[in-house]
């Protein structure tokens, strides 16, 4: 049975008042990704220094699950290395943000991770020779 438990208070809080939103003043990579079928969209801005995520912000438009996941995630990865993010499995990601979506909502929750990984891959390919 599908229950409303997934929408715990912390998720609703992060949906209504997402943390770390906006556009960073100083960033060296940005990436936008979307779930076309739901119209969800996240644009991420990263300030990466010495392969560490020094700062992160984003603009998110979408359902409670996608926005809250991004908000919680953004809090957890400041200071982490880019390799850490690239190696994060879906299960580890769900545990990290403590959201365990039902099958139909997996895509919503994963959008943040996907957008961030894409950004880092872009960053790496642009900075290959540095």
């Amino acid at each position, binding site marked *: 049975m*599908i229950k409303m438990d997934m*929408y715990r208070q912390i998720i609703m*809080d992060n949906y*209504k008042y997402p943390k770390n939103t906006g556009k960073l003043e100083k960033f060296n990579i940005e990436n936008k990704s979307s779930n076309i079928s739901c*119209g969800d969209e996240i644009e991420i801005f990263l300030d990466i220094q010495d392969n560490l995520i020094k700062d992160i912000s984003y603009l998110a438009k979408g*359902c409670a699950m996608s926005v809250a996941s991004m908000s919680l995630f953004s809090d957890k990865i400041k200071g982490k290395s880019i390799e850490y993010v690239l190696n994060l499995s879906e299960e580890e990601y769900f545990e990290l943000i403590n959201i365990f979506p039902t099958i139909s*909502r997996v895509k919503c929750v994963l959008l943040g991770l996907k957008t961030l990984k894409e950004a880092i891959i872009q960053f790496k390919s642009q900075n290959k020779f540095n």
Partner: protein
Amino acid sequence: MQKGYNYDKFMIKDKLFSEKVRISNNLKKDFPIFKNNKKLIYLDNAATTQKPNSVLKNYIEYYEKYNSNIHRGIYDLSEMSSLIYEYSKENISNFFNINSEELVFTKGTTDSLNQISRMLESKCELNDEILITIDQHHSNLIPWQKLSQRKGMNLKFVYLDENFEIDNEDLLKKISQNTKIIVLSHVSNVTGKIHPIKEIVETIKDSLKIYNNSLYFVIDGAQAVAHLDVDINDLNVDFYAFSSHKMYGPMGIGGFYINKNIKNDFEPVIYGGDAIEDVTELSVKYLEAPQKYEPGTQNVAGAYGLSLAVDFLRKNRKKNSIEKKEKELFNYLYDSLLEIEDIKIIGDKKNKISLLTFSHKKIHSHDLSYYLSTNNIAVRSGMHCAYPLYKKYNLESSIRVSIGCYNTKKEIDYFIKKIKDSISFFNNLDDK
């Protein structure tokens, strides 16, 4: 009808299968899904309908009593299977007022439309034009995109008016001497709008008559067949595709109508046994349509299941006026939703089947429909396999409610109540 068949055996069909097609005022009772899911409020009938007892039980009974391959064995079982298959085709054809020689079985609408687009390929030339309305399901769009790319044709879109009905002016502007294929949906799976196919066909034929070019009209009937009394013959089209599972029949079968005047004009898309008259080392001669387009082992149980679904619809339309009941529920649903603040329904109330799609100004459709699902209400949310339509008109991801023959006013009341609850659940968070 297959020539030379003796249907007498099948005329005693009441004795062949045990489960009768029921007519009932409480149709829910005839659908086992509701016995197994007591609280289920199923409002996603446009995605697929539930199946009545007559379809389910006899489907299995076919395998238990008559299973054998058709048109091959000379033994009793195979004869019986062939009869069941041919009878089903005849019965389904009657339902659509077409000749059984004009009905090709496929896996469903998607399969049909893909095959039709391939069949038409050899009739198309560079710079020919395909005219298509913007409100297509992806399965009636991508095959035409691909065909136009393969052949260097123009794919021209016809847009909609403010009520999401086909804009006739735009249509007339876009037809030309080069128009070859016209692709329409009978009913949109997003807006629920019923398009006046017959009138559109007449208009186009009329204005292109001076050129005397050969035109092909292809209609996607997936959303029409369960709700309208579709007389394909009267529409004056060349192809009409549909799926069984959206009209109370089993999944895995459907078909398309192909007009008898052109039915043998095409190369089949799929090759194989049972569709050929003669084969030599280097050549093949096909049987006449529709067999030429139905190679390989056919879905006999599926065909019979669809035939029973057609019986179910026919009887319950006549004796139980399900169309009228669905319409009343729809009107009630539409009016009730309209009263809720910040809800926007796509397209006005006119010319719709019992289907509508709406969004809330502030709350994402996934959040709303998730809340509904926790209350056992099944609806669909998203962009309903029609991205170009959503993009063209800047529509938001939205919730689709589609009514079937078993839904009740009580269920609609419950749905409306839960939508309101859901809105306050998400809205009240602001007041913390």
